[in-house]
């Protein structure tokens, strides 16, 4: 659905690094998404292990992350686009290393946060989405096309000229998503994206995620939206306590929570 022939190939990176996996975009779907690989990752704050010895490959297109408050979910998700660097170990996106290729990784891995107010800059919705595109040094007319296209894909074209801060929480959340998708990342990480949404908007959001051609990695306390995911990780005390299909993962987590 999302049309993106202009996806950046990890160009310059390939110079420094080895044979970066080439990505071909064909008929609306990625033939292949670079896999995300964590090797022996530790994250420590003040000598406390927040994540411990995590080794994992993420290849699926729909991955959920659940777990208790403070378990390390947000930290894990932030590792994936280099917002957090591992204290020990490495995180690779395809051939790129978050430690060395921060800039390219940022373009490949988009991030949508819980509080959309953190992300919204301009008073008018379409200006806000265009703002980030200036950074990609797209020419002005292409920017406009891209903005309109992204809003259309998310079915929020009617918001284009609205004032950002008068939007409801749910609408703001959609605008924040649009501003990230406009950059055409290959992977989008969501950290608790539905906390302020009502049931209807949650269903709509769930549908949007299902339609995304990008890989989606969703951290959430809202277990229902993970139903049709391929894989769900349960994080407990800085380790991955369970890793499998959603129904089993959710059962595991519920059991743990009632204990």
């Amino acid at each position: 659905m999302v049309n993106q022939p202009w996806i950046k190939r990890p160009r310059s990176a390939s110079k420094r690094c080895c044979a970066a996996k080439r990505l071909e975009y064909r008929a609306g779907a990625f033939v292949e998404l670079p896999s995300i690989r964590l090797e022996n990752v530790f994250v420590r704050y003040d000598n406390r292990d927040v994540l411990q010895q995590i080794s994992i490959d993420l290849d699926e297109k729909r991955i959920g992350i659940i777990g208790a408050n403070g378990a390390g979910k947000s930290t894990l998700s932030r590792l994936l686009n280099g917002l957090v660097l591992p204290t020990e170990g490495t995180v690779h996106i395809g051939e790129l290393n978050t430690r060395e290729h921060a800039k390219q990784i940022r373009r490949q891995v988009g991030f949508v946060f819980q509080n959309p107010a953190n992300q919204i800059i301009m008073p008018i919705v379409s200006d806000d989405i265009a703002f980030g595109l200036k950074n990609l040094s797209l020419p002005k007319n292409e920017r406009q096309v891209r903005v309109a296209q992204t809003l259309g894909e998310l079915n929020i074209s009617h918001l284009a000229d609205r004032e950002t801060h008068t939007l409801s929480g749910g609408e703001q959340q959609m605008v924040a998503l649009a501003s990230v998708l406009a950059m055409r990342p290959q992977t989008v990480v969501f950290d608790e994206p539905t906390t302020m949404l009502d049931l209807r908007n949650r269903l709509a959001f769930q549908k949007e995620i299902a339609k995304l051609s990008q890989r989606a990695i969703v951290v959430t306390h809202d277990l229902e939206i993970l139903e049709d995911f391929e894989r769900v990780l349960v994080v407990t005390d800085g380790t991955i306590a369970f890793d499998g299909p959603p129904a089993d993962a959710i059962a595991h987590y519920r059991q743990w929570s009632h204990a």
Partner: protein
Amino acid sequence: MEPRMIAANNTSYLARIKPGWKFGALLVLSIALYLITNWTVLLALFIFSAAILLSARVDFKQLRLPLISITIILGVVFILLGLQTDWLNALRSVLRLLTMCLLAYAVSLTTKFEAMLELFQQVASPVRFIGGNPAQIALALSMTIRFIPELKKVYTEVREAQHARGLANNPLAVTVPLVIRSLKIADETAEALDARGYDSEPAKRRF
């Protein structure tokens, strides 16, 4: 680094003197210093102030940074002033400043933060005659302390969120959401104060 009370556990004789007296003495001495031109007297006063600071058993770790900073600035001042006027004059000026700073730190490090605030509130209490409200001032001061870590958190969150758009180093992209969120926090907090029955006097003057 979190804001922390500097004079947390000082129990020396200086800590037992009322803050009002310490402040008053500091003020008088500071003015007196500018009236003194004899460099030997100034040197004596400098040694005296160092002795006070030492005798107050202050926590010198806290003084490291400020002292380094002031020493370097005064070094520059000394050289410039020496070249422009004469070296004795430069020495006088530097001694004066050092004395004043040491005494000021002696007061700061032996006065509990709360006591200091209370003194300020007493000093500020005449504002009620021009329509101010001392209770509001007190509330503003504590709320500021409470919100500093909150705003640091907001700043980090905004940076992270913009990082994902490649805009983490764009001043506009970071500052606008920071300000908007601060305004929202303020609106919500005002509402929460209301809900908790906080009752400010009706405004006597418009802000």
